[in-house]
């Protein structure tokens, strides 16, 4: 734990320069090697305590596997697309989020596909996915369905919860694993308000940001932040950063 606290301090100093998050599929190694979990990396530490690959041997790195999502731009594509996913290692699966917000769980050692999940994202404005979030219900029995779950926002403003081990929707969350998030006023088109970033999970609350389409109308919907119960999907609070009075 001490090692990791030092590590976090280093990470804070280097934010903006660096681009390495640390995740671990396994229990912290006995050799005193601190393992950062996904919660830590999602808090932006951007630092890994792993040191097997180091200055002396980094030249010996070689490719071990390559995976293709299949979500490529069509010929003469004129829209906006960027495959920016930061993979997440959770429950022993390396989760990849494609530009169409389809999730794939890979074996982190071999790159072999374990399951896929299609969010059916309309994705017509800007096709990208930077990452997903995860959360474990400490009160749920071990190995129970959705004890560890993934949260994914969509460009048509849905919040989806699926089981991190199986990729099946969490029946106890929203309606069949989906919360259709309310916008402050009716949207002009399904993606006028989007949940493009990965949600933050703090304690047992999922906090979802929003992206409101620019230059559509003067009186646009609010880009408010919404929060939901991580177990049930019930609304917990909302916050509008702008004073509307």
């Amino acid at each position, binding site marked *: 734990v001490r090692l990791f606290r030092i*590590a976090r301090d*280093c*990470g804070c100093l*280097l934010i903006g*320069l*660096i*681009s*390495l998050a*640390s*995740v*671990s*599929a*396994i229990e912290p*190694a006995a050799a005193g*090697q601190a*393992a950062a979990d996904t919660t830590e*990396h999602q808090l932006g530490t*951007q*630092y*890994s*305590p*792993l*040191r*097997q*690959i*180091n*200055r002396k*041997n*980094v*030249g*010996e*790195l*070689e*490719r*071990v596997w*390559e*995976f*293709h999502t*299949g*979500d*490529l*731009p069509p010929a003469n*594509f004129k829209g906006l*697309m*960027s*495959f*920016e*996913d*930061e*993979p997440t*290692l959770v429950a022993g699966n390396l989760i*990849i989020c*494609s*530009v169409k917000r389809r999730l794939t769980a*890979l074996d*982190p*050692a071999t*790159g072999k596909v374990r399951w896929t999940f299609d969010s059916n994202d309309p994705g017509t404005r800007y096709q990208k996915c*930077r*990452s997903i979030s995860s959360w474990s219900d400490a009160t749920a029995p071990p190995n129970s369905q959705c004890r560890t779950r993934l949260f994914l926002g969509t460009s048509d403003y849905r919040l989806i919860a699926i089981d991190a081990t199986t990729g099946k929707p969490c029946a106890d969350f929203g309606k069949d694993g989906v919360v259709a998030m309310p916008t402050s006023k009716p949207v002009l088109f399904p993606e006028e308000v989007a949940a493009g970033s990965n949600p933050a999970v703090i304690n047992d609350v999922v906090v979802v940001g929003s992206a409101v389409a620019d230059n559509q109308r003067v009186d646009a919907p609010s880009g408010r932040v919404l929060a939901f119960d991580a177990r049930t999907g019930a609304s917990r609070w909302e916050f509008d950063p702008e004073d509307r009075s």
Partner: protein
Amino acid sequence: VTAGGLVFIGYTLDDTFRAFDLATGEVLWEVDIPAAGTAVPVTYEVNAEQYVVITAGGHSMYESTMGDAVVAYKLKRIER
């Protein structure tokens, strides 16, 4: 950034993934990837082996090479 004294970064317009020496900025390793690595690489350990993984998918606005790849690296030989 890792405890191994390295900075891994894609985020260039060429299709190259690099590792820098954290102390000196020297490029210690670079490799061609299938598209521009416009993403945050991650590292993790499985079965006592450290992996580095980057998404290589490009960015349409920057007109870099587009792709749908995720590529993983580890050491050829692990000293134990």
